[in-house]
């Protein structure tokens, strides 16, 4: 700072003052301050000059690898050394003490496992009735002939001679088993023919055969639904679907059984929650005719909802193939919905088609994907060829005799009329469904009590009236919340007197067994 003119001015003033000897205090003070300041300034200037000289001196200049070292570098190096020291210090960890061998031995000795199965109770020991003949509309149980309502033989194909002939031919040509999975020489030409036939019959591009009805759903679902996808499913679906959903690890949301409003609310809620859902796949899973209750799903409403909210539909048509629709093509024909709108249709062939196994049908992309990633298809032996040829024959017979479905409808109507006034039991299924589901009007209060009562009823019906009906049973791993009841499977091969006999016997037996439980 150059204050020399000020200095000279003030020094001049001071000098004048001294010379004039007139006391001027402010000027004196200011002059004193200025003198001090200047002295300090001089001092700082001289030290700085000295330090700069010292540092600029050739001896102190260091050029390391061509990099000029300044003074700040020493400080930085010091800081770095401190950081390294701190890092090298071990952090505090409480000492780990793993279990010694002796302790592990003791623990292993002390541990007592549960028994493999829980103790066997009374109800676990009951055995089902043993048939001594084919499970047709009339079967022989314990030497007596009974009217059989326990087989899902909807079109009466059990014992049909055309099926028998084609099975015999296939058995003589191919033997019984197929001895390999589909990928390793287990694909026999009847499998390919059967798949083509099913696709043709239902009007889709392609279909895939599974060797067991139950495994169809629980192999198809994990193929397309992975972790993170959303599945909306009816709460009354059967165990195969529940297991498939569990194995897929997706998010599962249940809606009330066959209640379209509940479905709409659920879809609304889910769509509102997940806006950024570009890669998220969303599915609705329903059955056409529910195994657990006999209700029929209203497919047209479901399709409207599906298109509104952009979900895909997976339909299980096990109990509706060959039954619903005027030519037996299932729920899509019944509700007049084109089958292309359903993404995946699965069905078990062990019901109307009277063979074993299952199939899945849909667009070509869907089916091709399953051929390599469906675990029940890839890792399991294929369907025995005689069963596949039985399926082909069954579809042939159905195509040639479409009146079988109308006969079945008539039989269902007769049974409905007859059972509508049974005391203590009410029909809980749809009037068009081939499964007639009878529920207790007044429940005993517990599932076990209900089951006991119904079992009693069924046993009496078998023994006294020679009518074979069954109670719907639940496994411990089944999560379905619907009530249990008596299930009757109507067949097109039942004659009218069979049905009337069944109605009257049930009325009689129910009157005896349920007399304490009849509503006033």
């Amino acid at each position, binding site marked *: 700072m150059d204050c020399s003119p000020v200095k000279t001015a003030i020094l001049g003033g001071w000098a004048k003052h001294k010379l004039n000897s007139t006391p001027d205090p402010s000027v004196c003070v200011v002059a004193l301050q200025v003198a001090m300041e200047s002295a300090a300034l001089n001092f700082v200037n001289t030290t700085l000059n000295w330090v700069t000289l010292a540092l600029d001196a050739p001896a102190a200049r260091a050029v390391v690898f061509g990099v000029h070292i300044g003074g700040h570098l020493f400080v930085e190096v010091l800081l770095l050394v401190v950081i390294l020291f701190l890092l090298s210090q071990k952090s505090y960890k409480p000492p780990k003490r793993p279990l010694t061998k002796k302790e592990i031995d003791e623990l292993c000795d002390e541990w007592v496992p549960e028994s493999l199965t829980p103790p066997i109770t009374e109800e676990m020991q009951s055995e089902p009735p043993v*048939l001594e003949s084919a499970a*047709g509309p009339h079967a022989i149980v314990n030497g007596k002939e009974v009217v059989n309502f326990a087989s899902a033989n909807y079109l009466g194909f059990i014992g049909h001679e055309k099926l028998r002939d084609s099975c015999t031919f296939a058995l003589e040509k191919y033997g*019984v*088993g197929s001895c390999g999975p589909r990928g390793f020489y287990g694909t026999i030409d009847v499998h390919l023919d059967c798949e083509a036939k099913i696709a043709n019959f239902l009007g889709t591009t392609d279909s895939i055969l599974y060797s067991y009805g*139950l495994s169809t759903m629980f192999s198809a679902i994990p193929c397309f639904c992975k972790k993170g996808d959303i599945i909306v499913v009816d709460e009354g679906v059967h165990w195969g679907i529940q297991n498939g959903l569990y194995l897929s690890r997706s998010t599962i949301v249940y809606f009330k059984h066959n209640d379209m409003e509940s479905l709409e609310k659920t879809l609304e809620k889910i769509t509102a929650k997940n806006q950024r859902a570009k890669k998220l796949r969303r599915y609705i899973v329903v059955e056409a005719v529910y195994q657990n209750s006999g209700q029929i799903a209203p497919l047209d409403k479901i399709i409207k909802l599906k298109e509104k909210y952009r979900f895909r539909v997976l339909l299980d048509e096990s109990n509706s193939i060959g039954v619903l629709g005027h030519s037996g093509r299932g729920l899509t024909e019944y509700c007049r919905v084109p089958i292309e709108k359903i993404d995946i249709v699965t069905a078990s062939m062990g019901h109307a088609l009277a063979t074993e196994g299952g199939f899945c049908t849909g667009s070509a992309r869907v089916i091709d994907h399953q051929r390599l990633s469906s675990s029940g298809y890839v890792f399991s032996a294929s369907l025995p060829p005689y069963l596949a040829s039985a399926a082909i024959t069954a579809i042939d017979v159905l195509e040639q005799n479409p009146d079988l479905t109308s006969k079945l409808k008539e039989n269902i109507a007769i049974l409905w009329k007859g059972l509508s006034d049974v005391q203590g039991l009410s029909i809980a299924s749809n009037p068009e469904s081939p499964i007639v589901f009878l529920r207790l009007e007044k429940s005993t209060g517990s599932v076990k009590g209900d089951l006991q009562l119904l079992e009693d009823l069924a046993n009496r019906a078998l023994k006294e009236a020679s009518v074979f009906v069954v109670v719907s049973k639940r496994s411990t791993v089944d999560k379905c919340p619907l009530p249990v009841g008596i299930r009757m499977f109507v067949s097109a091969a039942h004659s009218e007197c069979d049905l009337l006999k069944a109605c009257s016997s049930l009325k009689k037996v129910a009157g005896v067994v349920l007399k304490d439980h009849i509503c006033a």
Partner: protein
Amino acid sequence: MITIPYLTALSTYFSYGLLFAFGQFRDFFRKIFDWWQASNLQGYAPICLGLEDFYIRRLYLRIQDCFGRPIASAPDAWFDVVERYSNDNNKTLKRTEKISRCLNLGSYNYLGFAAADEYCTPRVIDSLNRFSASTCSTRVDGGTTTLHKELEECVANFVGKPAAVVFGMGYVTNSAILPVIIGKGGLIISDSLNHNSIVNGARGSGATIRVFQHNTPPHLEKVLREHIAEGQPRTHRPWKKIIVVVEGIYSMEGEICKLPEIVAICKKYKAYVYLDEAHSIGAVGKTGRGVCELLGVDTADVDIMMGTFTKSFGSCGGYIAGSKELIQYLKYTCPAHLYATSISPPAAQQIISSIKVILGEDGSSRGAQKLSKIRENSNFFRSELQKMGFEVLGDNDSPVMPIMLYNPAKIPAFSRECLKQNVAVVTVAFPATPLLLARARICISASHTKEDLLKALEVISQVGDMVGIKYFPAEPMKQLQHQHQQPGKDTIKSE
């Protein structure tokens, strides 16, 4: 252990890398191409995401004609393979009417019951006429016939357990049993190479799953000790029960399980043993009763014995054998028993008849002949292959023999060349095996005659030379009556 030669490993990695790079390249062009075309998904997410089927679209489709070959006759020792052709570079394959008669080295036909049999087939047709092809009903409803009861007794006797229950499919047997006998709070320890059905069943049960090194009893002991001492994860409560799941013969390795040691360890630590004898029942053992008979293990020590009827009995279905309480409990709760259609009556009759033949109860000695034939055949074939210098896995007496291929290009080469010479083999690659360890799997049957085996050996040797899979030095040609094993080759087999 499989010791893969260093150079082969390098070349296999390189091949896969090349295929992967090509696949990505093509996918990139496909994405650009699709971007130009309007998508017709209209707001739906694609049903199969692009990455999930990359392997299928770019690698598997190239060799699709080696898998899923349709046949037009029974899967006996010789069968008719339907020829297929493709117009679009293997994307779709079309059937033709032409068939070629080939030697069958791929089907699971261990005792030769695959085709129509003189004792079994008339009885099967009888039961078809009596009971029809299906009962259309579950076992607890109206699906239990006298045939089913007879079958369960027969199976229980054959296996050596007090009771048995039979299901219509082997895969479902595993998947539906494990969730019923063990649940949350239990521990399942399974072999690392167990079959997919066991993995599915274990996952469906909700129990904690741990894996032990393939066929290594000391490691199993270590895992057991660790887990019993630690208890359940996070809460450290003691486990409710522990089940150890092993298989009799591992289908991809051909090895026999070390059952005596495993059973001893499980007894010591009070764990339950679940033995899956899908491939070994009927095929090994002096009277065909499986690994327990072969290795001298008392069947009472194995708690749950499971098996399938597809392989040695020429039928379909699976069974579980155990104590009477276990079977009663299963019949009460197992979903496969309560909800699935019962096993088809003709198939049940086939099983009963084939068991009778094996035990000699049909009045002839065909059963004993078949059993000794398959043992002879497998040992002969295996030793001959090893003499030629192939790397063959598996133990003595096991009818399954995998031949290592490694390189992805050798898989279709081996398969197609063998088919040209009328020998049908099965080749397995990722994902059924680890990525590097692709192999060809041979299944020997009791219905193969000596001439069949010699022809097969000749063809395989020729093709092996052409493709270059003789990884070990060949031994000088000894006489072909050599029956027993070379001592030096023991190091190659499982250990």
